[in-house]
């Protein structure tokens, strides 16, 4: 009896196990433990949360492997980590570290202006950001096993994530009304293999798990994105930049589980203290969501 590893089904499969859950950004083992205890289904190990990357400026890169290892030792839930767009060597390093998922992320400074990582070559599954259906489809055809909205990371402002999931939903709805000829034309337009576009049309959704990310700062934000059809939620700066991270983390987990129950949402939203400060999108110097294509 033979074992097969790293099949597309296994890569997508881990994300399927995370559905309905919250994945939290953490910058050290202590935060990872707080996240796990609060009910996170996975943690994203990174050097600085997006709001600090925004504030500090400079080039943002893959995290120190030492920190990633410490986080892997600290928790039993899956550990993800980020690489720069197109930086396939950072990805090779994360594969050597045996992280459970690699996020090819616009939050870090892109390393390649032409190519994203050829993700099908890796044994570790990838998650990638998208602002619309074309972007999501291109990432999936490159081998991404999970998609998330880009949103606008580090702002504590949910408006961009909402725009992105609404765009993807309405483009899928439009695709479902297209004739065979129009589907062909659309596939060419978004530079995606026809078979994948046909599959999306048939399923009425992306063929991989699709999480919300970028700007989630409150339990209500998480529930909003769940009600808009996301399969789960990434929270970056929103937790550890709030007044009471453990309490905020727990509240967002419970809100994601009970996203349709307004009574529970009201209860978990009570007395959380200040959420992260947040930024108006129009005032941003750098829009991270425009990185990648």
């Amino acid at each position: 009896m033979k074992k097969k590893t790293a099949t597309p089904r296994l890569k997508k499969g881990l994300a399927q196990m995370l559905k309905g859950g919250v994945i939290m950004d953490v910058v050290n083992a202590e935060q990872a433990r707080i996240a796990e205890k609060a009910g996170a289904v996975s943690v994203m190990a990174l050097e600085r949360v997006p709001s600090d990357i925004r504030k500090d400026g400079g080039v943002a890169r893959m995290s120190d492997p030492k920190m990633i290892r410490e986080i892997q030792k600290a928790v039993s839930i899956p550990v993800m980590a980020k690489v720069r767009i197109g930086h396939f060597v950072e990805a090779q390093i994360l594969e050597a570290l045996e992280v459970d998922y690699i996020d090819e992320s616009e939050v870090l400074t892109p390393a390649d202006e032409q190519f994203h990582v050829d993700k099908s070559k890796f044994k570790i599954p990838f998650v990638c950001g998208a602002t619309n259906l074309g972007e999501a489809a291109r990432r999936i055809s490159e081998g991404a096993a999970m998609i998330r909205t880009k949103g606008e990371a580090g702002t504590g402002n949910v408006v961009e994530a909402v725009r992105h999931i609404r765009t993807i939903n309405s483009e899928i709805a439009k695709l479902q009304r297209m004739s065979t000829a129009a589907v062909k034309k659309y596939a060419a337009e978004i530079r995606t293999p026809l078979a994948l576009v046909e599959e999306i049309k048939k399923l009425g959704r992306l063929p991989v798990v699709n999480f919300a990310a970028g700007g989630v700062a409150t339990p209500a934000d998480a529930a909003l994105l769940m009600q808009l059809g996301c399969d789960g939620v990434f929270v970056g700066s929103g937790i550890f930049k709030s007044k009471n991270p453990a309490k905020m983390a727990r509240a967002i987990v419970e809100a994601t589980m009970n996203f349709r129950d307004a009574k529970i949402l009201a209860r978990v939203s009570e007395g959380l203290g200040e959420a992260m400060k947040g930024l108006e999108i129009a005032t941003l110097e750098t829009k991270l969501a425009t990185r990648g294509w």
Partner: protein
Amino acid sequence: MPVHKIGILAIHGDVAEHAAILRQLKLEAIEIRTKEDFKNLDGLILPGGESTTIFDLAKTYGLVSPLRKFITTPIKNLATNNPKVTPSGLQLPTVLATCAGLILLAKLKLLDVKVERNAYGRQLESFEAKVKIPAIGKKEITVAFIRAPKILSVGKSVKILAKFEDVPVLVRQGEIFGMSFHPEITSETALHKFIFKSGLKSSR
């Protein structure tokens, strides 16, 4: 003919994948989020996910005792293929638990097995394999082990229905079926069919 209602614990995890298999088998899937949802079920699925998160939220939302009560209270179980009927004519409900669900049952001592979480390794070690389950037929079925738990030992009342590399991967204790793998990720319907429908032929 009434449709059989199978509850799926929907705290988080691959609930939709199990529901899709149930629909293919013409069984109704009911998502369980509150204790009221346990009413009028003919069977139960505990899906895959992160067992620590599921257990923790089940406690917070008061789902542990209703779950225990449901699993240990005899019902008019038409799905069962267990010939043993209690004196009342009722039987314990049928339960299918995958991966995190298996860990949950072991933790609650509803299934007498010792399991170790993530014992097959990290995602890099996740694998698909063909598994032979003599109870359901000669044909092997392809299943997925995703950061899977390992069954280290089983109690006296537990029957091993399948092994992979000499390690038990599918066990049965009365009407409870626990497995360390996922048949639903490879869209394999045979096991769900055996567990929830093999009793139906004779009784209906």
